[in-house]
């Protein structure tokens, strides 16, 4: 595993200092799309920290990696569309099956027989597909603030269509491809202000906006259209095929995805629901200690999850 040059379009801004550097990194290629992954630590068990919506890349796990890597082997990869992974054009490249197949390819490339999957928001969909279709590869799954259609979304997010033009750009009208092409940063600041609904979130907000600026509005629009195409009617059936232990962590102050979606997913997968009081949509960044302890406790509760 060696690093080759970053693909065109990858960020050129200097990266922040890291608390923990990867022990190995590399690229895996699927259908001409190169995906960048990192490996921290060695041995068993392995935790795969999944990509989420490509508005951010794998640095959104920065508060988990240094802690978890002291207890587990940790894998991350940049979802297609951001970070050091390629940015293929077109909606088809970003459908949920592609992300699930990418995760499997990263397990293969890193010689990982079996891993616990951890995903935030949209990662719930691809993690569930992987766990349902390849049960032998998945020891357990943790859903943080899952974005799943098992319960209704926030009504204020359903007022405007993504590709329509509107007179207004108030509130969620900013979640719109035309607005993005005009005022991408303004959308990002709005979106992450909603994501980090807790006070004192200026730093994670600034980080997340920076990662979103590592991709571009056209790529992100493709990913967003792909998410809206997720065949959610069959998602409940996919959930029913998940046999591994599941943990759902959801804040009751989540303005992006209602807590009810996490509760419904816990029920559909037979998993445990942990409610974080007052937490917004990205508790792994805003409440890292609590989330890290939950992750470690879950991994160690799995058969052979504890290190010998």
């Amino acid at each position, binding site marked *: 595993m060696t690093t080759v040059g970053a693909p065109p379009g990858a960020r050129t801004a200097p990266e922040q200092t890291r608390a923990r550097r990867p022990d190995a990194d590399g690229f895996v290629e699927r259908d001409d799309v190169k995906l960048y992954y990192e490996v921290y630590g060695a041995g068993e068990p392995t935790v795969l920290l999944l990509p989420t919506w490509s508005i951010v890349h794998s640095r959104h796990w920065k508060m988990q990696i240094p802690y978890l890597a002291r207890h587990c082997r940790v894998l991350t990869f940049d979802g297609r569309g951001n970070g050091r992974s390629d940015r293929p054009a077109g909606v088809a490249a970003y459908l949920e099956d592609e992300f699930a197949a990418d995760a499997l390819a990263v397990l293969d490339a890193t010689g990982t027989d079996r891993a616990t999957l951890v995903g935030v928001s949209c990662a719930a969909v691809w993690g569930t597909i992987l766990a349902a279709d390849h049960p032998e590869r998945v020891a357990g799954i943790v859903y943080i603030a899952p974005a799943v259609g098992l319960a209704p979304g926030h009504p204020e997010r359903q007022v405007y269509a993504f590709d329509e033009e509107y007179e207004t750009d108030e509130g969620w009208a900013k979640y719109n491809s035309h607005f993005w092409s005009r005022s991408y940063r303004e959308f990002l600041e709005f979106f992450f202000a909603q994501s980090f609904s807790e*006070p*004192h979130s*200026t*730093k994670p907000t*600034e980080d997340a906006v920076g990662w979103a600026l590592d991709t571009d509005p056209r790529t992100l629009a493709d990913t967003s259209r792909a998410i809206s195409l997720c065949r959610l009617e069959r998602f409940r059936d996919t959930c029913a095929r998940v046999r591994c232990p599941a943990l759902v962590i959801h804040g009751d102050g989540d303005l992006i995805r209602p807590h009810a979606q996490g509760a419904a997913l816990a029920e559909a997968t037979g998993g445990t629901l942990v409610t974080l009081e007052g937490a917004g949509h990205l508790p792994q960044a805003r409440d890292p200690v609590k989330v890290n302890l939950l992750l470690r406790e879950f991994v160690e509760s799995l058969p052979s999850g504890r290190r010998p």
Partner: protein
Amino acid sequence: MRAREPDTEGYVDRDGVKLHYEVFGDGRPTLLLLPAWTVVHARFWKAQVPYLARHYRVVTYDGPGNGRSDRPVVAAPYRYETQGRSVVAVLDATGADRAVLVSLSEGAQWALWAAAHHPERVLGNVFICPTVDLELGDEMWSEPFEEPYTSTEGWARYNRHYWLGHWREFLEFFFSQCFTEAHSTKQVEDCVGWGLETTPQVVIAREQAPWPDEATLLGWSARVRRPVLVIHGDEDEIPNARDPVRVNLLIREFTESLPAGGAA
């Protein structure tokens, strides 16, 4: 909610003014974390106490005028000699023969007084952003405190009349000047909250107490024989709250560097 609760607490009575102290841990040596300006109380050490108490015995106390201490509205309890003697009184009350004195901002004056007058009680001094009149020229002193204010811009707000009508606004301004780094909203909110636990009348009384002048400070300094560490940000005024990990490690390194780790 606190990360670490005190193991014991109590009051010392200083001429009718009760001061509240807390003790954490039982390691050696004792670290006495001094009060600072009356706009905050001992909770401004919250990012130090849990860490330091794992290694040492940590004592904090609220100065007169805030926290769980009394709030006199006359100047005498705020004089530097009285505040210096309170340092020793808290050491006596907590059974600490000797201690490392850790002070922030104007707490430096009282720590320095104690080190000069009771050298046998002081193992060393850590001064964080000391506020001492050795280098004047701060713009904050350029506006008259007692006169009716003519402006509500900048340090013109450091004014008794402004405080009486706009205490919260003053605190928000003042702490925005203390925390100049980005992402300090939590620290500002904490400090403003502590400032609202006292009143402008109390802090005005504190302002009536004189500060030690340069000759006095130099005289005390010349008598200090124990190790001294000065930590000063080139922008930030309260680094113990904004950069706690760095400050905690410096305090620990300093304490460990004392003869016999200060435990003798």
